[in-house]
């Protein structure tokens, strides 16, 4: 029975003069308090009845969302048009509630029509795969349901976040240690970098606003993530004040061009205060040359932030960490374990090389209703004032439990394997007719064109580009409607649409990669 029925039954018994003493939930005799038709003796929610709902829901989640989703025989996605889907889901919210069986069916429907990001043929984003340990941790997080602003309300998760941050900082290589926080996404971490960098430059900005300083300028490569632009807009700096540094043919920021732009900004009377380098760009997976960029930042006294949301995982690998060589010299790092390391969304860390409580000073508002100074425990464990958020989810725990389960070595192996897979795929593409590699992958992004037979004899030039540009969108539509595969595509710097294969999950094997190429060919050969 749902909650409404339960209360109704109680009310009925009361009206018939029966005492509620017999109810096992009431330990002793107590006079029923009834105010305005509400019976206050018992909880509104029948705990036992609804526990069964969660049990059934969990069983169903295990079957439909976990087992099936990782079964390669099942579809990656069950495409429906928005109109069809609206009808199927019956989204309308009504006055009356529904029974358990209906709700369970709704859960089943939500699963059915959702994309199976854990499927072995899902390669669409910079995250993928199914990681059971972090998933369990995320269930625990949801069940415990607390916020990470004070030690008193989240003791376990506070300590875990601290441990994970310390370990990540160790991998970055800041010997003197540092500070950090987990954020709701890498975009937020990048915003923190901008905010800290400008606060570091001029702390008065916190109170006086940006009018306290000259026009500030951020420098980032043209391949950087769009959150840099969004940060500039939100933080009041303005998107035009993000100067885009050209990158070379492999997508890496050109240091000499960076220096030129810095000088340009200064000559305009503006103040360049921060450089954003990207370790693992979104499309090409390129790594900006951090050492050289650090030299320049030191020379001009600029804050160097590395957006390693995607590429940070390389730090776990002895073999590949050279991609981030020089990272120990930077001021701040954004690193998303929910990407290559497969922690459940979201898990985004912001690290800063600072031991002067810069994060705290920059963000604090010292609310008396959370951060009382007369608490009975060491209040330095209350991390809330480091954040611009109030309630904050304990995302680090998902990383911690997975790390405990697998160990650093296993995590390293996964990274190495993903990159080996990428290289293998690149080789396979080169050997195969009709497939053209954009560039040798530096990381896990493998970018390529599929050239249908009808276009293979065309010479390189605008006519081919125009035709080629139409191929990927059609193949994508077909793969989604068939539900067999999901791979991303985009145009980039005037080039026609190309596919971007991203290899992450250790569940993916060579035959899955062969399948990708076979399927794309099968779907597009008639074009």
């Amino acid at each position, binding site marked *: 029975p*749902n*909650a*409404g029925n339960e209360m109704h039954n109680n009310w009925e018994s009361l009206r018939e003069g029966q005492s509620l003493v017999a109810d096992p939930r009431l330990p002793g005799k*107590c006079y029923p*308090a009834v105010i305005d038709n*509400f019976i*206050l003796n*018992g*909880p509104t*929610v029948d705990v036992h009845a*609804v526990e069964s709902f*969660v*049990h059934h829901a969990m069983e169903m989640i*295990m079957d439909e969302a*976990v087992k099936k989703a990782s079964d390669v025989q099942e579809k990656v996605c069950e495409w*429906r048009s*928005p109109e069809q889907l609206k009808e199927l889901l019956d989204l309308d*919210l*009504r006055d*009356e*509630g529904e029974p358990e069986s*209906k*709700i369970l069916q709704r859960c089943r*429907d939500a699963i059915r029509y959702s994309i199976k*990001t854990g499927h072995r043929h899902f390669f669409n984003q910079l*995250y993928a795969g199914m990681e059971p340990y972090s*998933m*369990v941790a995320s*269930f*625990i997080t949801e069940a*415990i*349901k*607390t*916020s990470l602003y004070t030690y008193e309300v989240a*003791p376990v998760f506070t300590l875990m976040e601290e*441990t994970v941050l310390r370990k990540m900082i160790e991998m970055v290589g800041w010997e003197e240690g540092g500070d950090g926080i987990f954020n709701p*996404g890498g975009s937020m971490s990048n915003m923190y970098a901008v*905010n800290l960098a400008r606060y570091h430059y001029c702390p008065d*900005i*916190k109170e006086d606003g940006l*009018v306290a300083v*000259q026009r500030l300028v951020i420098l980032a490569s043209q391949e950087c993530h*769009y959150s840099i632009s969004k940060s500039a807009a*939100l933080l*009041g700096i*303005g998107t*035009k004040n993000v100067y885009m540094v050209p990158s070379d043919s492999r997508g890496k920021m050109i240091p000499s061009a960076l220096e030129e732009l810095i000088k340009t900004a200064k000559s305009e009377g503006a103040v360049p205060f921060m450089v954003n380098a990207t370790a693992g760009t979104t*499309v090409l997976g390129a790594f900006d040359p951090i050492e050289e960029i650090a030299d320049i930042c030191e020379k001009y006294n600029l804050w160097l932030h590395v957006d390693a949301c995607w590429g940070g995982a390389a730090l776990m690998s002895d073999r590949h960490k050279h991609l981030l060589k020089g990272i120990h010299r930077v001021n701040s790092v954004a690193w998303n374990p929910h990407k290559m390391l497969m922690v*459940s969304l979201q898990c985004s860390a912001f690290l800063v090389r600072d031991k002067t409580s810069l994060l705290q000073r920059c963000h604090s*508002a010292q*609310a*008396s209703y959370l951060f009382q100074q007369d608490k009975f425990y060491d209040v330095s464990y209350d991390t809330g004032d480091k954040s611009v*958020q109030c309630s904050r989810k304990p995302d680090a725990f998902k990383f911690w439990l997975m790390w*405990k389960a697998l160990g650093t070595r296993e995590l390293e192996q996964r990274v190495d394997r993903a990159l*080996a*897979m990428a*290289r293998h795929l690149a080789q396979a593409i080169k050997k195969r007719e009709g497939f053209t590699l954009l560039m040798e992958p530096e990381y896990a992004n493998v970018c390529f064109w599929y050239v249908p037979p009808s276009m293979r004899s065309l010479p390189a030039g605008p006519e081919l580009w125009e035709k080629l540009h139409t191929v990927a*969108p059609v193949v994508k539509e077909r793969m989604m409607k068939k539900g067999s595969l999901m791979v991303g595509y985009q145009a980039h710097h005037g080039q026609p649409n190309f596919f*971007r294969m991203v290899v992450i999950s250790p569940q993916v094997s*060579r035959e899955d990669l062969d399948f990708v190429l076979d399927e794309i060919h099968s779907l597009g050969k008639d074009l």
Partner: protein
Amino acid sequence: PANCYDLNESLVDHAEGQHFLNEAFKIITEEVLCKGTDVKQKVCEWKEPDELALLLDLELRATGEPEHRLLQRVKDVAKYSVKTCHPHFFNQQFGGLDYHSLGGRFLTEALNTAIYELSPVFVLMEAEVLRGLRQLVGWTEGDGIFCPGGSVSNMYAINLARYQLFPEAKSKGLWSLPQLILFTSQESHFSVMKGAAFLGIGTDNVISVKVDEGGHMIPEDLDEKIMLVKSQGAVPFLVSCTSGTTVQGAFDPLDLIADVCEKHKLWMHVDAAWGGSVLFSKQHRHLMKGIDRANSVAWNLHKMLVAGLQCSAFLLKDTTNLMKQCHSATATYLFQQDKFYDVNLDIGNKSVQCSRRVDCLKLWLMWKAVGSNGLAERVDRVFILVRYLVEQMKIREGLLLLHEPEFANVCFWYIPPSLRGKEGNADYQDKLAKVAPVIKERMMKQGTLMVSYQPLGNKVNFFRLTVLSPLLSQKDMDFFLNEIERLGNDL
């Protein structure tokens, strides 16, 4: 060959992972859900940070661990975490437990997706939920989005208000603008301050409007302060008022404030993160009379409606796609225009985030399960429980209310017998200030109860009991009063 890894095989054993999931879930059910809602169990198992660090064996090592060890860890986490669903947890503006939203949350985690083309179900679902919420606000049209917390919702309001007035701020930054000023009440949430700093406006440009005894913004003072700012040549652009202040639970007089905002043409934002849920209740929605006149509303469903962190809605009256224009940055790798479906469904450009968690499912599922009527009942019941509590407090000795509660915050001092009748003494306030911290320490170390305390203005430390959980009943209220007395009567 590229290296020695066997690429022919998957590296991960599915059966192992699924077994762990099943076993872990049993532990979660037992240790968190069952024990956590059982009044015979503790609310918290207090340990000092150093001790806890040792118990948890936090260190991250090179090698992994076997399943039984990990399951033990799951148990430990559950044991030493605060049971926020416990009927005796009153510490924050969230708590309690709703099983349908919990099911929704597990489902969200299992699907592990973010909102854009990646989640056709959830894009549609979010739109429907936001529409339902807007309807309760009184808007037949509008816009909205789910944010990672009310603080971010408030930031969105500030950013949009600024953008509407000065769209060039997006590209040129604040140097091209006159001095911007925003207004909020003395008792508003600190996120307005944090938002002003974060957005480059500066905390000094947040003007604090006076409140009355009950903690409500005084509209006359707001009007005066706006005029003063204008006379000084600065540009007021936003008023952020509160429906349900953090400490006292006060509801600012929205109609009167809307009059002032309309007069001066300022964006009116209502931070209803805490109090918004009264809109479900026919009996109590009058507390937010005038809400439909606002430009934007922040409403956290994870608070009174127990949807589970995070579930923070930001609602907008605007129908001109303001949010999208304000926040968009065209990223070719996400928002391709040549997609095969209507690209208006890619709502990612409305957000300042890239990946955005699916926060609507848990609310939608719960709403479907209990209906708007069921949610209204929960809200109404809270008011009844508060009334009962207040009546009891008046009967008992040593409990002094700050004032009659307007909402679900019950603020009071516990006055131990030794201090009763001694209000005249010079050191009375000092002594009283020390009472709550000691009782708090005791309650946490014994694990019987959790309720927060804070000072406010010239008022020394008092308790703030927040009533919200649908699991509460009269005996929990009785227990609460008895326990405070038991913990503190020797002071």
